[in-house]
């Protein structure tokens, strides 16, 4: 067995500001050269665990430590954050905030600057590390011109700068589009090839991390380690569902097909798995079977975008000749890589930007004559980060804000706000101060504060960003209710393919300012050409279809139909579960972890 580089022994930690400990009885050994995934939802304590390794605890966050944690044989308490920074490199979740330099080279050099290393020695090291992450041609680039993925690469190069042998990646996928996420995982794997290096990945997106092999998965929940095992083993068990971690889609499909997961070798990789005969047969039979297909019915036309072109300045067209329509009651995903024009399309619909050419009609009226405020009554826009929308102190005041601004009579305000609060399951907590609720709940507050205006269309920007599977499912269920029971049109701007697949009927794909495809979601995801052009990522169902020699579109469609069928079957049971969520205990950790996204 290789040397132990990180050793937790009966370790516990309680933040100074909190009532109860965040970590309990942690016993964990990580060995040199290992690649370990720490898995868990928000508030599970996984980020806290990482902060105990890199020294942010106890040196930046005060609190009480019990037991011991050793890094490279030294108790961290007796060390300092600076000494530890030479042994442990941390790539933070927010790669934008981590980027402190004003150019790529400067940011990579930051740790060396602090070590007082002369510039002549820095330059070759910076070049070497930039080359390791593939950023050697961007040394002079400024942060404002880099994509999220590029910033993250620089972040990685920046911690390599101090020649550390332990690397911690705190939610490396949080801010990246699917293709970039895939590349980040590949890059991390490449770094892991060096057997002197130990890698710890903190994530809740199991399937995406499993794009490349990991040695061990440590599952955390409520401050405890609940499993410490191989990826294959964890996929076989029921722990993932129990602790609210999304299992890979192909595993779900295998479960739907009634496969026993036991006999399949290499379960953690869809590419390398050896199917047992039994599984293969059951899967083939499952995908041959018939389920009632879900055809969305189209309501009246609400928004029509016709031949619209737009550019912020004269030089570069952000959108060119784009046309599409949105109907009542639809669920639409607007997908495409960063900068493809999807957010601009939303801004045009909302009237924040106005088209240079072409027309936008909202409810039959030309949007040209409508102010942002007037459009806001028909089309609601929910920003990605709820902290950027909330202005009032209590939930009720926040939700009523838009109506108060319109000087509506008090009784009418109360009636409308009550409806919106109920729709978002916020009514029982309406008098709570806004800053005590979790990230997921804040997101619901922002939706409610849009809902009071009774718009027909709700546009949500990256609804899944910065959230774990549990709070994400909660939001999706609630939006589904808004769609089905209140007939609201829901538009997601997203690059989360899971989200698009499971929650929308139609996908509009943008690439380089043009509308590439506008079709049923499963058809878009089964179209390899579109996926590649739009920098999207195949879901593992696509690979599963290929491995089985089936047609991907059929497999994806069948999967979705089967899920819809299941959720219809469950019907009422699901509603009850949803109702029960609202009074859930709120952990401060929860909002904190989510808030960093």
């Amino acid at each position: 067995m290789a040397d132990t580089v990180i050793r937790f022994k009966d370790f516990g930690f309680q933040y100074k500001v909190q009532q109860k400990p965040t970590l309990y009885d942690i016993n964990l050994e990580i060995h040199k050269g290992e690649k370990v995934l720490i898995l868990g939802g928000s508030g599970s304590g996984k980020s806290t665990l990482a902060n105990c390794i890199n020294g942010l605890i106890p040196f930046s966050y005060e609190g009480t430590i019990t037991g011991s944690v050793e890094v490279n044989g030294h108790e961290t308490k007796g060390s300092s954050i600076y000494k530890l920074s030479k042994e442990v490199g941390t790539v933070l979740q927010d790669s934008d905030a981590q980027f402190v330099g004003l150019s790529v080279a400067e940011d990579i050099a930051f740790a060396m600057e602090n070590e007082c290393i002369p510039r002549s020695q820095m330059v070759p090291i910076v070049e070497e590390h930039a080359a390791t992450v593939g950023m050697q041609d961007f040394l002079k680039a400024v942060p404002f011109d880099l994509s999220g993925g590029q910033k993250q690469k620089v972040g990685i190069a920046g911690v390599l700068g101090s020649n550390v042998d332990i690397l911690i990646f705190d939610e490396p996928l949080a801010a990246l589009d699917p293709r970039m996420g895939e590349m980040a995982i590949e890059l991390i794997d490449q770094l892991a090839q060096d057997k002197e290096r130990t890698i710890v990945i903190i994530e809740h997106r199991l399937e995406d991390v499993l794009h490349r092999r990991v040695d061990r998965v440590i599952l955390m929940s409520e401050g405890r380690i609940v499993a410490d095992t191989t990826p294959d083993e964890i996929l076989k068990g029921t722990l993932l569902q129990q602790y609210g971690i999304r299992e890979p889609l192909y595993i779900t499909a295998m479960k739907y097909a009634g496969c026993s997961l036991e006999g399949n070798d290499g379960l953690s990789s869809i590419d390398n798995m050896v199917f047992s005969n039994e599984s293969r047969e059951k899967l083939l039979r499952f995908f041959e079977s018939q389920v009632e297909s879900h055809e969305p019915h189209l309501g009246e036309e609400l928004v029509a975008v016709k031949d619209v072109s737009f550019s912020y300045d004269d030089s570069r067209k952000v959108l060119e000749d784009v046309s599409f329509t949105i109907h009542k009651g639809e669920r639409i995903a607007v997908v495409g890589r960063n900068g493809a024009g999807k957010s601009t399309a939303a801004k045009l619909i909302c009237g924040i930007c106005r088209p240079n050419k072409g027309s936008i009609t909202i409810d039959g009226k030309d949007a040209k004559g409508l102010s942002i405020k007037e459009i806001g009554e028909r089309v609601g826009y929910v920003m990605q980060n709820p902290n950027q929308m909330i202005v009032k102190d209590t939930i009720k005041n926040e939700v009523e804000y838009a109506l108060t601004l319109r000087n509506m009579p008090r009784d009418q305000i109360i009636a409308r706000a009550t409806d919106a609060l109920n729709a978002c399951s916020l009514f029982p907590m309406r008098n709570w101060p806004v800053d005590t609720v979790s990230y997921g709940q804040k997101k619901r507050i922002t939706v409610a504060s849009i809902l009071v205006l009774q718009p027909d269309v709700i546009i949500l920007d990256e609804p899944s960003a910065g959230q774990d599977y549990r709070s994400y499912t909660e939001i999706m269920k609630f939006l589904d209710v808004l769609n089905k029971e209140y007939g609201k049109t829901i538009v997601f701007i997203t690059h989360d393919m899971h989200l698009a697949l499971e929650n929308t009927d139609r996908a509009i794909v943008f690439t380089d300012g043009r509308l590439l495809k506008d079709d049923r979601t499963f058809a878009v995801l089964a179209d390899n050409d579109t996926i590649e052009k739009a920098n999207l990522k195949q879901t593992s169902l696509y690979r599963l279809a290929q491995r089985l020699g089936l047609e991907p579109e059929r497999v994806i469609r069948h999967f979705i139909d089967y899920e819809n069928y299941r959720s219809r079957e469950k019907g009422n049971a699901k509603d009850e579960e949803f109702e029960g969520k609202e009074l859930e205990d709120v952990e401060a950790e929860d909002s904190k972890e989510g808030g960093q996204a």
Partner: protein
Amino acid sequence: MNNRFLINFTPGSTMMHKLTGGTKVLLFVLFTIAIIATFDVRVIAVLSILPIAAIISMKPNYKPIRFMIGFMVLVVGIIGSLMLLLVSPNAGLTNVGGSTVIWRLGENFFVTKETLWYIFAMFVKRLASFMVVIAFVLATTPSEFASGLAFLHVPYKVCTIVSLAYRTIPDIARRYTDIKNSMQMRGVELSKKASLGKRLKATAALLVPLVVSSFGKVEVIANAMDLRGFGRLKKRTWYSEHELTKADKVLRKLCILFTIGIVAYIVWFRVINPWPVTYWSPFIAREDIVKVGRFETLSILKWFGK
């Protein structure tokens, strides 16, 4: 990015751009001190040759520069001068040392040759320091600015704040626009349809989410810096402070001479043998200068006093 304005983040390729941050900041400080120290238009004219040559040598985009100079001429030059003429028409007496009336309108409003000269000299002085600023801003990237300040022995934590500010201001500006847009959709009226008071109040409300989301960032940035060893040692090196170019070496030597020159000038012309009034003028000989206290020429006092 449309809010970068004049600031360039990537160094250019001319000789001026290639100087180290240290040299640029040093030149900036020395020129600024020199221009503040002298009230002699002839000296200022000589001092502005170098900054103007520097600006031209950098082949900049003149559009924003023209705009700023235009703004300067309008506000400081025209509006400022008119105000001065109105408030203190006899300022030339205090500052230049004479009162030759060339045009008069009533008792309290008149124009003197000396006041005109005073206005002209003051404007030249401001324009010159403005040229120094433009040359400096055009030549220096924010990181060179930070490392240059460190070269002048400013504590490095202060220098880092400077570069962090440049790093985050564009982000904050973008976040502000996002918040503003989303608030407008909810019905906050920020266009001219609402009264100024209402608009101010609404804008103040926008600051809440802006500050909250920015504070969240501060913690993350601080952690990111701690984790990479910021603040451990008393000193740090700067990647952006590259090796000295030939021009650097020459200019730094000249800076020593320049410093001696400035000190000598201040000691001689401002301490040992000072000009009796603030500004030198071509048309009054030293012996003919009339010395009058500063407040006696302020006609605004006359309006209220007598």
